[in-house]
């Protein structure tokens, strides 16, 4: 009597065979060998080409953010093209005919190949990371940090925007041709950008809520970027002070001596603060009365960093997020290869990747982006706006700030960003694209003369 697990076993065996074939094809066609040489050249050669400022911190930035980032970019491109070739080239060369007449489902073949290529990516990524880590031996341990980033307790920009919107609406201060959503978006943006002036001799302070109790040692870092009203260089001299804000005792203070417009990261250590969940940090601006006032953007340029976890673990989290991105690129390549011939798929994939990278930093077009067109032109503009917003919405989860930038800055990769990357890169994208590929392969004539 056949086992009820038999159909599942058939699918699993077919998927494993498809995955093994994809890996063998990559290894035996010397793609992996060429890729390893290229990755080694990037990992070992790039740090020698990029000139830093000579400090261990800049060395760390170069080795992690630029070198590893470039290696991930190379892997991403290779993964995309390998994905295109896995179906596209096989169909073009008619090798897929023999596979297509076997009783394996198209989605199973797709999933097997995807898993095989992602596994290969994981191995290559681990090799590159191991190479980069070997080069970090000379970096002082004090720089290899993993810290949670806490923002100051401020009203949410959207709430603040709503409050200001109601106020402006009562006083008639809103532009007549601006819709409510556009006005709310504008006001929220203004809130995020708003600055607070710090005159000489004054004090400014913020309260922070930490995600977890402060570790033993009470070590904290206040990160801020100060500017002058005239955007000129100026001395930033003063004292940074931290104290519990949840009722306990314990304070610490440290002198600040830096320049405006620099990213200041001031370490504060107070063992008495261990276990605190809320802390208040203040900065006394100690300058003569004739010195320029400083300007700070609390929403953008102030943060408190608290230790959480080890550097190696944080690097692993960043690599996991990048692996999820590679998994999404692999899925995209496989699906394009299932829909088009290899040259068309490779071109479309590369063009899409270029659009993704170009749109990563582009702001989402707002209502104001619509020109004063009328009639069918206005409708066409609206359709293109909806399309651009749709593409942005689909790609944005995969195009957040680089997790390697977090690691290089000693910031723990946020759990929410990691979850989002994995959910989109290894979940939503492959699932959607696999179904599209299976439908295309069912519909496509695989043996046209």
């Amino acid at each position: 009597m056949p086992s009820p697990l038999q159909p599942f076993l058939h699918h699993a065996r077919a998927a494993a065979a498809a995955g093994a074939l994809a890996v063998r094809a990559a290894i035996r066609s010397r793609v992996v060998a060429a890729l390893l040489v290229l990755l080694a050249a990037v990992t070992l050669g790039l740090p020698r080409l990029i000139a830093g400022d000579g400090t261990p911190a800049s060395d760390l930035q170069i080795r992690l953010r630029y070198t590893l980032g470039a290696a991930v970019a190379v892997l991403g491109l290779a993964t995309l093209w390998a994905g295109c070739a896995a179906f596209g080239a096989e169909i073009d060369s008619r090798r897929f005919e023999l596979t297509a007449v076997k009783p394996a489902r198209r989605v199973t073949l797709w999933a097997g190949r995807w898993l095989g290529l992602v596994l290969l990516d994981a191995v290559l990524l681990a090799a590159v990371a191991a190479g980069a880590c070997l080069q970090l031996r000379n970096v002082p341990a004090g720089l290899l940090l993993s810290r949670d980033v806490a923002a100051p307790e401020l009203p949410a920009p959207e709430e603040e925007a709503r409050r200001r919107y109601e106020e402006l609406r009562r006083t008639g201060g809103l532009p007549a041709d601006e819709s409510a959503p556009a006005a709310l978006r504008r006001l929220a943006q203004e809130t995020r950008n708003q600055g607070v002036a710090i005159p000489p001799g004054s004090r400014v302070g913020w309260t922070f809520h930490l995600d977890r109790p402060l570790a033993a040692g009470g070590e904290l870092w206040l990160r801020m970027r100060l500017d002058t009203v005239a955007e000129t260089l100026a001395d930033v001299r003063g004292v940074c002070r931290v104290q519990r804000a949840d009722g306990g005792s314990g304070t610490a203070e440290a002198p600040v001596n830096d320049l405006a417009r620099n990213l200041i990261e001031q370490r504060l250590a107070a063992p008495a603060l261990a276990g605190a969940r809320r802390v208040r940090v203040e900065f006394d601006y100690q300058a003569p009365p004739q010195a320029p006032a400083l300007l700070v953007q609390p929403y953008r340029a102030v943060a408190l960093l608290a230790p959480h976890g080890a550097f190696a673990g944080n690097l692993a989290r960043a690599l996991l997020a990048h692996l999820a991105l590679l998994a999404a690129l692999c899925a995209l390549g496989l699906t394009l290869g299932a829909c088009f011939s290899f040259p068309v798929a490779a071109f479309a994939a590369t063009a899409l990747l270029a659009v993704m990278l170009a749109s990563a930093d582009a702001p989402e077009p707002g209502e104001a982006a619509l020109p004063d067109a009328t009639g069918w032109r206005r409708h066409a503009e609206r359709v293109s706006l909806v399309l651009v917003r749709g593409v942005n919405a689909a790609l944005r989860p995969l195009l957040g700030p680089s997790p390697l930038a977090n690691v290089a800055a000693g910031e723990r990769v946020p759990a929410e960003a990691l979850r989002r990357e994995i959910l989109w890169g290894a979940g939503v994208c492959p699932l959607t694209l696999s179904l599209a590929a299976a439908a295309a392969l069912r519909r496509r004539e695989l043996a046209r003369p």
Partner: protein
Amino acid sequence: MIETRGLRKVFRDFWRRPRVEAVAGVGLEVRAGEVFGLLGPNGSGKSTTIKLLLGLLHPTAGTIRVLGRPPAHTASRRRTGYLPEVSCLHPFLTPRETLHYYGRLFGLDAATCRERARALLAMTDLEAAADRPVGEFSKGMARRVGLAQALVNNPDLLILDEPTSGLDPVACREVKDLLRLLAGAGKTILLTSHLLADVEDVCDRIAILHAGRVQAEGRVADLLRRPEAVRFLVEGLDAAAAEALRRELEARTGRPVDLDHPAMNLESYFLHVVARAGGRAAAAFRPADFLLARGPDASG
């Protein structure tokens, strides 16, 4: 096993305009256990018909049933073996890996795949080359690997597109012997060829395609029989006696009578010469190994 009705296939260009009608209303029936041959010149629609039967192309019109189901149904694919006209194998895989890969696509477990691969490699005389990449093989050797993969699931129905294409005469004979053996074991075989001798040697029934249409169909013996003529075959008759007999027959029938000496066909003569010269034994394919050592079939 296979039934088509009013099967049509029109290939269209990029703008969906009809370009060529490759199959124009083909109706076929292949019964269980028979060897059926599709004959026709190049471009007659043989390969297109086969690809329609396998679900690799979609028909413009008509119906297809393979093993009682639509051609793309996994249940019918599970019981079908296919050898394409050109053995498009993965060049970086060895024959053993190739058989293992296709066996796994049928859902066979690793032990069964290994056993099948061993038996099929022995059957196709590829044991010595079992661990060399297929990309290094000659066309004939690649064809053998293709044939082996078509049998990896121990299929009930074998669809072979030009099975002897690229093979030397000895290998051709071996393939034909194998097909007869498979037919004897109850397999249904549909093959295409434009080599008439191949089809004549192994097929029970044939259909002749031309311009996408079936021009003739039936049992080979029925189609080739000439009931209006009679042939005598006598050994040891001298020339004078033969001439006397010929005159007697002409006198009785009132029609001219031909007298000749029967000849071997070139294939038989070639095989005889090769065997006499001590070349590859006529039975390098050892189908009995595979047929006797069958494991469980793909359906589990």
